[in-house]
């Protein structure tokens, strides 16, 4: 057997829920039992990003990737792989498109086609040990920055072309410059970790898997801006992220990276964590600051911008987790290295969260400018269960749904905005032929109107009225004029709302109307839901050829509207059917179909 092997077990939120902690326990015991304790170390890491295949583990130095590992697989892994050096083939990852097993993680398309900069450490170090971070080049960026003047650091970040990864894509160096040049003796930096976009979890991944990179980024930013105090505002729904951040802050304080006179440079910086309390709008920077101050998280008019008057009226710079985490890489590897990735106006790499009806759900990092097709099909492994691709939702409740013909679009800030979507935080939710686009538009509006803080009437009332109209359409009670009303309302809400939530909340509706108008028209004019999703517009029927006449459907029908017996084919009485779907769920032969 090889000497000094490391087994990296993913213990992020996803894999932990699939039993990673038990696996680590069993693995430790088995390794000791076989007397391998001196040569094998077991590391509990943050998210590898391959959530679909979790729990996952990687054995170094061979880089073997085992997926969907169960407790009972452990003795075999230890005996066969660790002791005899033979792969446990049944646990290797098989590519859904090529059907070939990947012998190392670098061979798996999911990892091979990524460029992991921010995610470099995620899944490969123990996030609870600062030593692991430092050994992998951590805090080198800070050391480099402290050798430069503050202005030089701002200049460096400007030259890197880094843009805010939270959604709007504002140039980070420029933002820092505003705050640096703002008069004031007290300044703050804030990390926006209130990742509220449903379908986005890259910030969670970074906080859980590599918390020191965020701290280092904030330190560099604070030095550049002239701030001596900072906050990490993390949503309360991420308990593991908060825990890892707390540990990391305590370790950084002890090691002298946080506190007074950091690395004998005369620069001091103190960092605290604040947990959010469940309000999506607090991702907006003025609302976030109100929340830290202990008030209702309602956005305020800008100007004054946070750079002039932010937290407690002091100049403040806010960036999100991924942005902060990108900074140390720029300072330690140089601008030239960083700008080799990306397009002319969108530099560097971006993390996307692949979810929905896709084979490889998880976190992936690619250079800006990669096409959607590459991300979804090459890395993501295409649509689940061989179904047809219909749309990809990008940018969360502020973004839009893009159809098949837009898949060759390069993903960068400007291209996507032009197409009616936005990079947003980077959630990519894949939808197949069984997803109804009207239902999706209604879903997002439901979210936005619930999360509206209520300050601006157009956002508070307008989104509700748009939801009403969409709800009517899904019930088959829509009128064709409704589509114009939706567009008009959307424009008013966009033009007259104060903050990003209101200004962008109609985007999912506008984008679906733009690319999937026939589906809206089918609901209104033909009273049909082409995807067979909207309950009011579908009926169930039994396919006689597939029906094995078992009678399970009839037994489970709550209104007894299914008749038939061993000789006569089963039939659904449409007039009596309440469309509960119980028959479809119970049928083992897929004989109950939606029409």
């Amino acid at each position, binding site marked *: 057997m090889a000497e000094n092997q490391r087994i990296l077990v993913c213990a992020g*939120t*996803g894999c*932990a*829920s*699939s039993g990673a902690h038990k696996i680590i326990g069993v693995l430790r015991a088995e390794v000791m039992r076989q007397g391998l304790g001196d040569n094998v170390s077991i590391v509990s890491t943050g998210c590898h990003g391959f*959530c*679909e295949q*979790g729990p996952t583990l990687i054995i170094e130095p061979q880089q073997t990737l085992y997926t969907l590992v169960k407790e009972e697989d452990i003795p075999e892994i230890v005996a066969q792989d660790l002791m005899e050096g033979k792969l446990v083939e049944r646990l290797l990852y098989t590519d859904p498109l090529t059907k070939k097993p990947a012998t190392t993680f670098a061979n798996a398309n999911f990892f091979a086609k990524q460029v992991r900069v921010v995610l470099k450490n995620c899944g490969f170090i123990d996030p609870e040990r600062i030593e692991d971070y430092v050994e992998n080049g951590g805090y080198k960026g800070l050391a480099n920055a402290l050798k430069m003047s503050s202005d030089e650091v701002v200049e460096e970040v400007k030259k890197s072309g880094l843009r805010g990864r939270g959604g709007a894509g504002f140039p980070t160096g420029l933002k820092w410059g505003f705050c640096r040049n703002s008069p004031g003796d007290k300044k703050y930096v804030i990390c926006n970790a209130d*990742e*509220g*976009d*449903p*379908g*986005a*979890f890259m910030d*969670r991944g970074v906080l859980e898997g590599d918390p020191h990179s965020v701290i280092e980024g904030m330190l560099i930013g604070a030095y550049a801006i002239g701030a001596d105090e900072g906050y990490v505002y993390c949503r*309360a*729904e*991420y*308990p593991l992220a908060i825990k890892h951040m707390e540990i990391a802050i305590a370790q950084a304080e002890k090691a002298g990276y946080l506190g007074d006179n950091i690395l004998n440079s005369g620069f001091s910086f103190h960092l605290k964590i*604040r*947990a*959010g*309390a*469940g*309000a*999506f709008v607090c991702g907006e920077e003025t609302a976030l600051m109100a*929340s*830290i*101050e*202990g*008030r*209702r*998280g*309602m956005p305020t008019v800008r100007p004054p911008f946070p750079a002039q008057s932010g937290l*407690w009226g002091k100049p403040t710079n806010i960036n999100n987790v991924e942005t902060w985490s990108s900074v140390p890489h720029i300072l330690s590897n140089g601008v030239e290295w960083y700008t080799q990735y990306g397009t002319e106006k969108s530099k560097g790499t971006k993390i996307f*969260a*692949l*979810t*929905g*009806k896709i084979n490889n*759900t*998880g*976190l992936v990092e690619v250079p800006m400018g990669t096409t959607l097709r590459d991300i979804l099909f090459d890395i993501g492994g295409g649509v689940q269960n061989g179904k047809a691709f219909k749309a990809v*939702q990008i940018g*969360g409740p502020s973004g839009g749904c893009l159809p098949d013909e837009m898949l060759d679009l390069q993903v960068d800030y400007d291209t996507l905005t032009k197409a009616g979507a936005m990079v947003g935080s980077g*959630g990519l*939710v*894949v*939808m197949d032929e069984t*997803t109804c686009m009207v239902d*999706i538009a209604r*879903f*997002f509006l439901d*979210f936005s109107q*619930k*999360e509206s*803080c209520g300050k601006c009437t157009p956002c508070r009332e307008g989104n509700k009225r748009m939801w009403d109209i969409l709800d009517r359409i899904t019930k088959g009670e829509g009128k064709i004029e409704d589509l114009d009303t939706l567009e008009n309302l959307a424009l008013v809400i966009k033009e007259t709302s104060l903050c990003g939530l209101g200004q962008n909340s109609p985007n999912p509706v506008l984008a679906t109307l733009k690319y999937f108008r026939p589906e809206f028209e089918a609901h209104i004019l033909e009273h049909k839901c082409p995807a067979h999703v909207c309950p009011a517009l579908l009926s169930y029927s039994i396919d006689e050829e597939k029906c094995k006449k078992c009678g399970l459907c009839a037994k489970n029908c709550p209104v007894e509207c299914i008749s038939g017996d061993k000789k006569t084919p089963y039939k659904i009485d449409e007039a009596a059917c309440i469309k509960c779907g119980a028959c479809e*769920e119970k049928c083992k032969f897929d004989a109950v179909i939606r029409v």
Partner: protein
Amino acid sequence: MGTACENLVDPKQLKLDEVIIKYRYENGPLIPILQEAQEVYGYLSVHVLKHISKVMRMPLAKIYGVVTFYSQFRLAPVGRNVINVCLGTACHVRGGAKILETIEKDLKIKDGATTEDGRYTLEIVACIGACGLAPVIAINSEVHGRLSPESLAGILAKYE
């Protein structure tokens, strides 16, 4: 007499006072105090809010405004186990609604309600960031993923 007096002091209130003292030099301490108060009591009763108002010398109306703005804060007691059903986008397209429906039917409660025996409280949340395993629920912050209506009963049964 000493013992009688001690019996009058509510141990939870002592804990709450400790929390308030802990944050006394902190800027903007209200939300962390409310969060920890909720951890101590399980919810924020009028009594607790009035106490915080008195000790912090902050108008009750302001505190109430904050409490009602954030979805994390509860004004009524919850059951022993809090079930968060995720209806974020990824869970929505992978059948989260069916999961919710099944739980609602099995436990005979709707969003925000608690079962009569006080065993479960049901809450809908927008996203818990475990989208890779959609559809998911979290019970007392423990995430359960890749759910189907059939797998729910076994999971719920584990929480007494």
